[in-house]
């Protein structure tokens, strides 16, 4: 249960090694979060993340979760909720893919959509079903500014996030008024292992700043969070650029 000041006590991360998610978790553990569940593909990194959070005073559970296996999601999520209330679910998994080579490898490209969009649909619905049963809680879905408009430079990833983003918006409206809160997070370029080795994009930011944005959004039950905030205006402008011009933009 969140307290009167909006501080949650328990957190489920889907994509348990995500840097953005782990920055968020550390900050929340420094406040009131005591129970953290890291759901992800089993790895040394996942265990290390759990250890780190334990060192900060949280009780941490690790559960095996693969976004690419939607048929398993409901059971996994239900088991987590059976172990106690979850105040916040952070849907953080995602893959960037490699646009150039994926264009030549349709199966690899479809895998990006499979994880980011299809996995998001089943994991998102599973989470909301469980949240509704407990009568309170938030689901934060990490989308991307790339969802705003597909660009030729990364439309495979962008379209998968566009699907996820539209799904999450619809879901938010569907559960409005039921005590459940669904929030879409749209970060710009964030310096994490996902973008390692890539040149910084415009207005590049850090996972720490994104974490602050997520926490603030959760506190005021925001529907959409942009990080950094001004990207909202940049992208709503880009959205209206005519196609012939947009096509030629170096982005």
């Amino acid at each position: 249960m969140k307290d009167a000041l909006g501080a949650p006590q328990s957190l489920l991360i889907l994509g348990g090694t995500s840097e953005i998610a782990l920055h968020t978790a550390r900050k929340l553990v420094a406040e009131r979060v005591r129970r953290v569940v890291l759901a992800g593909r089993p790895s040394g990194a996942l265990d290390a993340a759990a250890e780190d959070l334990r060192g900060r005073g949280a009780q941490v559970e690790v559960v095996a979760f693969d976004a690419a296996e939607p048929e398993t999601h409901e059971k996994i999520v239900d088991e987590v909720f059976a172990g106690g209330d979850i105040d916040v679910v952070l849907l953080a998994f995602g893959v960037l893919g490699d646009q150039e080579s994926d264009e030549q490898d349709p199966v690899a490209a479809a895998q990006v959509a499979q994880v980011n969009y299809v996995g998001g649909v089943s994991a998102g619905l599973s989470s909301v079903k469980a949240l509704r049963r407990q009568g309170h809680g938030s689901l934060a879905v990490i989308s991307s500014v790339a969802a705003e408009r597909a660009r030729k430079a990364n439309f495979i990833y962008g379209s998968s996030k566009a699907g996820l983003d539209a799904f999450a918006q619809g879901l938010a409206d569907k559960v409005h008024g039921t005590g459940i809160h669904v929030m879409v997070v749209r970060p710009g370029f964030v310096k994490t292992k996902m973008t390692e080795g890539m040149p910084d994009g415009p207005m590049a930011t850090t996972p720490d700043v994104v974490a602050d944005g997520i926490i603030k959004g959760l506190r005021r039950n925001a529907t959409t969070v942009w990080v950094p905030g001004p990207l909202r205006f940049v992208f709503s402008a880009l959205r209206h650029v005519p196609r012939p011009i947009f096509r030629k933009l170096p982005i």
Partner: protein
Amino acid sequence: MSDGPAAGFFPAGRRTALTGWGRTAPSVAEVVTPMTREQVGAALRRRTERGVIARGLGRSYGDPAQNGGGIVLDMTAMNRVLDADLENGVVTVEAGVSLDRLIELFVPFGFFVPVSPGTRQVTVGGAIGADVHGKNHHAKGSFCDHVLAMDLLLADGTVRTVTPDGDPDLFWATAGGMGLTGIVLSAVVQMTPIETSLVSVDTDRTRDLDEAMALMAETDEKYTYTVAWLDCLAKGRNLGRSVITCGEFARLDELPAKKRGRALRFKSGTLATIPDLVPGRLPNKFTMGLFNELWYRKAPQHKVGQLQGITAFFHPLDLVQEWNRVYGKTGFLQYQFIVPFGREDALRQAVEKISAAGAPSSLTVLKRFGPGNPGYLSFPKPGWTLTLDFPTNTPGLVRLLHQLDELVLSNDGRMYLAKDSRMDPADLARMYPRLEEFRNVRAKVDPDGVFVSDQARRLGLA
């Protein structure tokens, strides 16, 4: 032990978002409004693994009377008086009856409720669940000290009549047990005899906190009802300046002759309702500073024997309905703590911190408690209790409250569960040393944790 309620017709529940009086942290539950014991029993049988909790008039500030995903029993339709011994002032009432109603019904017969919180819009069930206290705590203890018996619906569906002598464990686990032992269906309450419905009030204004504490320590023995209102925004020399009011129900011979004919007259009612439109930041440092200044100036330096009505003396806030809406959408919280006698320094430090933070506490009330009762989770114990109101959007509030927590804990103090909406679960056992005993009693009568609330989950109470 008697038989459980027979299969009853089940009133339809509505999925409803509920909050406490502070209007923070909502959750959605199936709210059922039973009118009979049988219906309470039927609702209990329909529970899911999310359990059941009773709710009175929802005057707790946080989340003890809500139960996300489960069933919430709105007890306010069970509001009948079952029996009244007007000779001795012993009444048997259903748990959903309000203190307002009890006062309205029995003052004309010369009986007042034994203990009244700052609002009379609370139910008998809620008064037991939180073991509420009033301005007479130092003299008369808390509400459950005046409960002679109660009928409690247990998790297994049976109803047990619980008395302090017959089943002290269950009685004192239920007194202040925040609804977690079962559903109080009815209670036998010893009312307090009065000769008139007027209170003879003495008022004093003090320059600062020390003067207030000194005066209160001195006057407590002389009056049944005492309380101090504190100006928390005053700084420096005026830190903690207060208005102290002390009262006693007037004897018949203290009334002017022409009033004696209707000495026990009492009329409940309100003056106004706050609309649900307030933008959010009405009570702030500036408006509250002004309000506090006026309140302080308005009070007489020293005045004795002023006759006041029950509402003016006990429940001035009840004149305005839904006054919690003044705080707008973001809501507010109350912070009430106690520190034992001898820890006056801690109290001073707390007031200093609040004043320095410029946090606009509108209703700051200081009171001395007398001895506590055996209630496992009952709040009062001998010492000073300070009650503060803060809008949740007060800048720096999280830090301020955290500092106050530390101060309270390190001075052997505790916080009141009926006001809690944010305490750190890790602090609970230190504040309530008998928590483990409470849990043991509860584990016996409710091994599966059927009775559960958002607060119980948040704090790991049960």
